[in-house]
């Protein structure tokens, strides 16, 4: 299988009016999330209305206006045609994905590596490997190891630098129907801004995911992601130089993620993604020292899903912008969990290594699930597990920690 060209795949998805990628006016609030709630209150999650594009034909029991089911069994009353389910995910600023399943940065290279075995055109979007201003050689090997229900990695942001990335891959990306979001990393605000300036206006670059889990050299190596002020500052600086959709990726390695998330949202991010890896380590088999060449690595995989779920749950309750959930997704249940705590889209990472076909399969499974439940869109699944009337956000951080 080859990466599909624009015309081919957009035909496969439901016909929708072409989303305008880069409108001049900012979409203040994504259509998915409904009207902005009054301060301190949350809308009851399932209030968001499904769009009118999908007629609830089957629900009326009338003659099916939709084509007969291709599936192995007949539909029950109330069930919809899976092909008619609207999976479009609006991430703000005109970035509307054909479906809410993305592949996570660092696990899918530049989109080309898995093209023999994955139908790239059916992914919601691709987040490419972390990209810096200058080439980086990365950390000393070994860089990965398996851990219980997870893995550690310490790649160290090996990449050829933004200019080489754009030269090699942007022309390819420009021919794909699947949007590519460039994951941007840096060690100073100037570096982030430098990378983003180069991405601006390049065909094939659909948006930016800001990886702020990097040491800030200007602040003695303190990560941007653990300091609300620094996180907001880098977001604001990047916002000023780009019209591209801007997603900022949160780190779980913080005491309370909520003030950081709200600061980033206030600084002009269009969406948030959460979570990046958790800091961890492993030892050599003979216990003579750390296993990874870099001593520390980032934990990912099913082991971190409960942490990711908690963080998404916390964040979606304090920000109005869309949240993309990441962390340990290996099946549809995980996707449904993250939607239930308010995520509008998900990213699949580590699970791709074992099961490269998973992201595309999840799209099909989510579509089928919606059809079986009689939902014309996946939107009613969003936020169902959020508290209806939350109290004021805790001043003490995550109050349930022992």
């Amino acid at each position, binding site marked *: 299988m080859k990466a599909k060209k624009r015309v081919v795949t957009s035909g496969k998805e439901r016909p929708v009016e072409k989303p305008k990628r880069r409108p001049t006016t900012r979409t203040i609030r994504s259509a998915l999330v409904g009207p902005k709630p009054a301060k301190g209150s949350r809308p009851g999650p399932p209030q968001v209305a499904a769009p009118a594009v999908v007629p609830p034909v089957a629900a009326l029991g009338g003659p099916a206006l939709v084509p007969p089911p291709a599936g192995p069994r007949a539909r029950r009353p109330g069930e919809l045609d899976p092909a008619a389910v609207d999976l479009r995910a609006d991430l703000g600023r005109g970035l509307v994905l054909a479906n809410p399943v993305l592949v996570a940065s660092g696990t899918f290279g530049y989109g080309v590596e*898995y093209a*023999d075995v994955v139908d790239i055109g059916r992914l919601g979007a691709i987040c490419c*490997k972390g990209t810096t201003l200058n080439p980086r050689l990365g950390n000393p090997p*070994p*860089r*990965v190891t398996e851990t219980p229900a997870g893995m550690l990695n310490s*790649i160290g942001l*090996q990449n050829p630098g933004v200019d080489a990335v754009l030269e090699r891959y942007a022309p390819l990306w420009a021919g794909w129907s699947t949007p590519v979001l460039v994951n941007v990393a840096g060690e100073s605000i100037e570096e982030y801004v430098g990378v983003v300036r180069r991405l601006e206006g390049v065909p094939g670059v659909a948006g930016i995911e800001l990886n702020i889990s990097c040491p800030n050299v200007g602040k003695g190596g303190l990560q941007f992601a653990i300091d609300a002020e620094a996180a907001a500052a880098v977001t604001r600086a990047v916002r000023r130089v780009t019209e591209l959709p801007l997603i900022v990726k949160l780190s779980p390695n913080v005491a309370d993620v909520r003030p950081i998330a709200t600061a980033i949202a206030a600084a002009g991010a269009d969406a948030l993604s959460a979570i990046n890896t958790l800091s961890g380590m492993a030892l*050599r088999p003979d216990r003579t020292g750390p296993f990874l060449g870099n001593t520390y690595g980032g934990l990912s995989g099913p082991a971190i899903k409960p942490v990711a779920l908690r963080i998404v749950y916390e964040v979606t309750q304090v920000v109005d912008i869309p949240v993309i959930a990441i962390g340990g997704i290996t099946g549809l249940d995980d996707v449904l969990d993250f939607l239930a705590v308010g995520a509008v889209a998900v990213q699949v990472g580590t699970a791709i290594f074992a*099961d490269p076909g998973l992201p595309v399969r999840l799209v099909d499974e989510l579509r089928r699930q919606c059809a079986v439940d009689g939902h014309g869109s996946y939107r009613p699944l969003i936020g169902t597990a959020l508290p209806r009337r939350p109290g004021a956000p805790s001043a003490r951080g995550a109050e349930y920690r022992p």
Partner: protein
Amino acid sequence: MTMRLVDAELLESREILPGQFLQHYHAPALATAARAGQFVHVRTGDWSGLVLRRPFTINTVDRATGVLSIHFREVGRGTAWMSRLRAGEQLSMLGPLGQGFQLDPRSRHVLLVAGGLGVADVRMLADEALADGRQVVLLYGCRAASEVYPSSLLPDEVEYLVATEDGSVGHHGLVTDLVTDYEAWADQAFACGPLPMLAALARLAAGRKARLGVATLGRKRGGGRPAVIGSPAARRKAFLQVALEQHMGCAVGACLGCAVWGVAGPQRVCREGPVFAADEIDWEATVGGATGKR
């Protein structure tokens, strides 16, 4: 070269040495496409919470029957699970992956050097070299007689020499001791084994031209401009090619998890490798940084 994701059916599993298994799978798409030195990335059972596939060098292929074999040691939960698989059960294989060995069409004498389980990596090359009418010598090193690779698993035409560290059979010492006897005879050498062994071989290979002096004269290899480092042509011209192993994530070049230090920067074992010309590798950094555990 296209990689494929297939369900391979186990045909036969044998414990050929204590804790070491030889398994034959029906995987026609992979068997047909595979070259010596390439590998498959295998998914173990889901029950165990193991999230990564395991890479295994393709040990042999039979293109007529579509059978591919792998040879592995039980070292952890993944390989333990695989060792208990029964004939008829299936597992998911991604492959063939990576760059295989580069045989120079003009090479007549092929030297294979294997340490322990490293024999799995060069085993298929013996078949390829013999098929083209070359002479093949395999030097094999291990700790003791109980670990010696059975000669019955090798083609008859292969000249097979063994070194054991305890002297219980064959040469008493390291397999690298045997190499000097063959370095003048061999046109090309291919090795796989523990990193210290490979580093020692790389040192030997680097000094070979000087030691042999005129012996290399008269051999016109390529001539003209030097081949690009890491290219198939450059690897063919190098006397020694090594197959490296590294912990892997994706095995398709996407995650950069399998890097080793090369003289030209980090190299992905799954993509630029697993076979490298010995002079592409920064041996000091690579041996120094490794755990030394196979």
